[in-house]
Every structure is written in C-alpha cells, then in structure tokens.
C-alpha cells in the first residue's frame, strides 16, 4: 500500500512537471508569435484611433468600423496580410479616407479603440483634426521637383492650402521657369491619403506613414527661444549636470591617434 501511494505520488509529480514543461513551451511559442504579429508599425488606422500600443489591447476586432465606412476604405487584417490579425486599417493608394464630416466609423466603435473625443471640437465631430498619419514626399521621384508642373496632390488635398501648400522657386536649369513644389504641413495633415491616391507617378511619390514613423523628435535639449509657447517647456525643466573628463593626453597625440575613432 505504501509502495503504491509512493508511485502515485511520483506519477503525480511527473505529470505536473510535464504539464508545466508543455505550458512553458506553449507559452513561449505563443507569446513570441503574438509579439511578432503585433509588431507591425506601418499600419494606418481609422480616424480617432488611440495610440497603437493601446489600440492592440482595446480593439475587439468586430469590424463595425469597416461596415460603417461608406467608401469601403477600411479593411480588417486577415491571415496573409502580415498585419495584426483582425484589426482595421486602410491602404490609401487603393482607397483613401474621404474624410466624411459625420465620421461614421468612429461612433460605432464599442470599445473606444476609436476615440470619439479625439475627433471632436466644441462638441461636434471634426474630421479635420484626425491624425491617421502624415503624408511625406519623396523629392527624388516627385516630378514637381524635376520642374515638371504637377499639383495633383495639392488639388486632391481635402484641406487644400493648409495641409499641402505649393512653394515657388526659380528653376536655375532653364533660367526662365519656376519649380512649383508641394510642401506638407504636419500640423494640418490628417493622413487621409487622398494625395497618395492622386499622385501621378508609377509608385506614389507622396505617401502616408503613421505619424510616429514619419516624424522625428527634437527632444528636450532644444527649445525655440523665439517662440513663447515652445519656451513654456522650460517651466518644469529639471537640471542635469554632466561632466566630461579632460583627456590627459597631449593635444598633438590625440590629433594623431585615430585609433579611438575606429
């Protein structure tokens, strides 16, 4: 009897250990996979989408926004799209966001992954403050920068004149013509992608990227001293003192010694 209970206990421990091992292996593969498939940075989300990190937690993947979109702009990521599965996105070169004034895709969201407040000014829905992305221009392939007259993106822009303006410059090559080149303004651009859709080059030379991808960040070291608003950032600045040790080498040595550089 004693022997039997001992072997039962052994079996039990063995089974628990095996279970823990399988759970650990499964958990490892599962979490690694989930981490990979949610790592896509280049998703353009519907208007009002919260920060990507929170979006992935909050979106329940119901597709109500996709159904609400009257232009079939929004798609749900399916297996094979290489995007976080079931989440809504759009490809502006195929179908851009036409910026409906009543933004039908946002209020239908049951989870708040599309945040109505972020596209509301003074209690009214306002699509012009949406931040789906930012249009960037490849100046190498944009034919306006070659001197060929094209303002397709400028004309297509729903916030004409504010999100994209046209700059005039002298064409030194011909000496008598002007460059009329588009400039995107990040504060006004919503990332709707109408410009990308309208671009005449074979592959669009103006295209929308998520704002975090398209934009840099100056950081706290640089302040526009001439800008009262920017100077406010100094108000809660804290002091950090750093000290670089003075090299004991002679100046001539450090000039001749390139070893540190490589």
């Amino acid at each position: 009897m004693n022997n039997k209970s001992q072997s039962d206990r052994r079996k039990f421990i063995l089974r628990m250990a095996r279970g823990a091992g399988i759970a650990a292996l499964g958990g490892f593969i599962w979490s690694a996979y989930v981490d990979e498939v949610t790592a896509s940075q280049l998703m353009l989300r519907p208007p009002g989408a919260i920060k990507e990190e929170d979006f992935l937690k909050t979106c329940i993947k119901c597709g109500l926004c996709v159904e609400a979109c009257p232009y079939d702009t929004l798609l749900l990521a399916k297996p094979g799209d290489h995007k976080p599965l079931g989440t809504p996105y759009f490809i502006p070169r195929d179908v851009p966001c036409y910026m409906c004034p009543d933004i039908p895709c946002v209020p239908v969201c049951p989870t708040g992954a599309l945040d109505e407040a972020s596209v509301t000014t003074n209690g009214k829905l306002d699509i012009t403050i949406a931040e789906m992305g930012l249009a960037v221009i490849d100046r190498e392939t944009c034919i306006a920068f070659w001197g060929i007259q094209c303002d397709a993106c400028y004309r297509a822009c729903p916030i004409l004149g504010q999100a994209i303006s046209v700059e005039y410059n002298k064409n030194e090559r011909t000496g008598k013509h002007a460059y009329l080149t588009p400039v995107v303004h990040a504060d006004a651009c919503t990332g709707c992608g109408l410009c990308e859709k309208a671009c005449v080059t074979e592959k669009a030379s103006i295209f929308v990227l998520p704002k975090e991808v398209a934009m840099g960040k100056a950081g706290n070291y640089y302040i526009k001293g001439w800008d009262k608003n920017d100077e406010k950032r100094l108000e809660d600045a804290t002091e950090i003192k750093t000290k670089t040790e003075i090299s004991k080498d002679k100046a001539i040595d450090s000039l001749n010694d390139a070893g540190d550089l490589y």
Partner: protein
Amino acid sequence: MSTLWNKYRYLFFRRTTQIGLLFLYFGANAWGWTILMGNLSSSSFLKTVPLSDPYAVLQMIAAGAVIATDIVIGALIITIFYLVVGGRAFCSWVCPINIVTDAAALLRRKIGVDNFAKKQPATRNMRYWVLALSLIISFAMGVTAFEFISPISMLHRGIIFGIGFGWAAVLIIFLFDLLVLKNGWCGHVCPLGGFYSLVGKFSLIRVHHTQENCTECMKCKVVCPEAQVLYMIGKESIPVLSGECTNCARCIEACDDNALNFSIRKLVKNNKSGE
C-alpha cells in the same frame, strides 16, 4: 421521413442558427443590413443592443485595456444568455468551427480512425490550462493573446470580411481532429470552449437522463463530442451537470428509447439526488 426528422431535428436547428447568424453578419457587411452587425467578437443587434464575447473582454482586462461601458454591457448580456441556455451552447449552436470539427468527427467515425487510435494521448483539461495561459500572456504582453491566433475568429471574420489564408487554419483544425486527436480542438484545446465550460457549470438548460428507459445501447456516447459528461448513462437518473456538455442534443436524437431529454435544472437543491 418523420424518423429522419426525429434523428436530425436538433442538428438541423443548430446548423440553421450557425449559418443563419453568419448570414446576417455577412449581409450587414455586404448589403448593409442592420439586424446583426459586426462579428462574433462583438456586434450590435438592431444598431442598439451591444453584444460582446466575454472571453475577449476578459483578455482585454488582463491586457490592461480601458474597458468601455458598451462592451461590459455586451459581455454581460452574452454571459447571462449562456447562463440560461447552457454555457457551451455557444460551441454547438453558434461557433462556425463546430461545423468543421463535427465533420471531422463524423469522417473519423466513418473511416474508422478510432479503431487504430484508441488511446487518447491528451487530457481534456488542457483547455483550462490554455485559458489560464491566454490570460497570463495577455497580461504579460499587453495584447489580447488568443484573439490574435484564434481560428474561430479567423473563420467567422473570414466569412464576413474575407478569409485570406485563414482557410489554412481551418484545414489544420480539421486534420488535427481527423487524424491526431478525437474531438481535439473543441474538446481539448479551445480556451473559448474552456471559458464557456466554466459558465456552463451554472447554466439552467440541461440534458436529463432517465435511467428506467435506457437500454444501454451507448449510441449517445458514440455521437457525443464530450462523452465523459455522459458517465451516468444506464446508471442513474440525473441531469448532465458538467459544464463541458455543449447542449448539442445529438445524444437526445441518437437515443431510440427516450432516455435523454432537455430539462430545466432545479434551482432548489434536491438533497436526495444531490443536485
């Protein structure tokens, strides 16, 4: 003809609700119907009543999402509904994967896979481990872990919005159930089934066994996808109280002797039978 109806009436109703619901969802996306919009993860009924998958909401909570009122209400409605009709009624009456795994189980019986694969190499409790693991990973990674791999969502979302490579996942489940493990996905792995098994512990509508009528032909155990819940067959007149019963009613149809029927669980404890 009437025997055919008696043998397959519940199966007919199940397939009707499964396909009918998907058809309503499909119509909402394709033709703008407003009866049932969204998909099985979350939907809106007649554009007013929210309905949400409580397991998905649980993962969202574990992931640390801010939970909106709409989906809390939606998840409560769904939970209460399944507390009445039987937790895993979702599995057999709504879930589209059920059609796939039922087909695999049928084919498995027909070609006699069970004859050479008698020993089941896995425990049915695995689903509760997968359920726990999904919540741990959701918590650790900050994303809804199962929702990103769920073949159930791949299929229903795929039918409504376009399937992509999702058919491969469905095929894998079919082959897994057919060749590797009997009732493998729905009966062993699926954490959503595990979740609804836990809900089903408390639900009202039950299959009831009447031992006096039973001839111990065991046809019910052959068709049952969770045969362990039918342990009382031919032994005791008690209801099937395990949450793992899917209320699919195949046993009721298979029984020739009127020994199995739906009943409503007695809420007051009956000391004699120990319910």
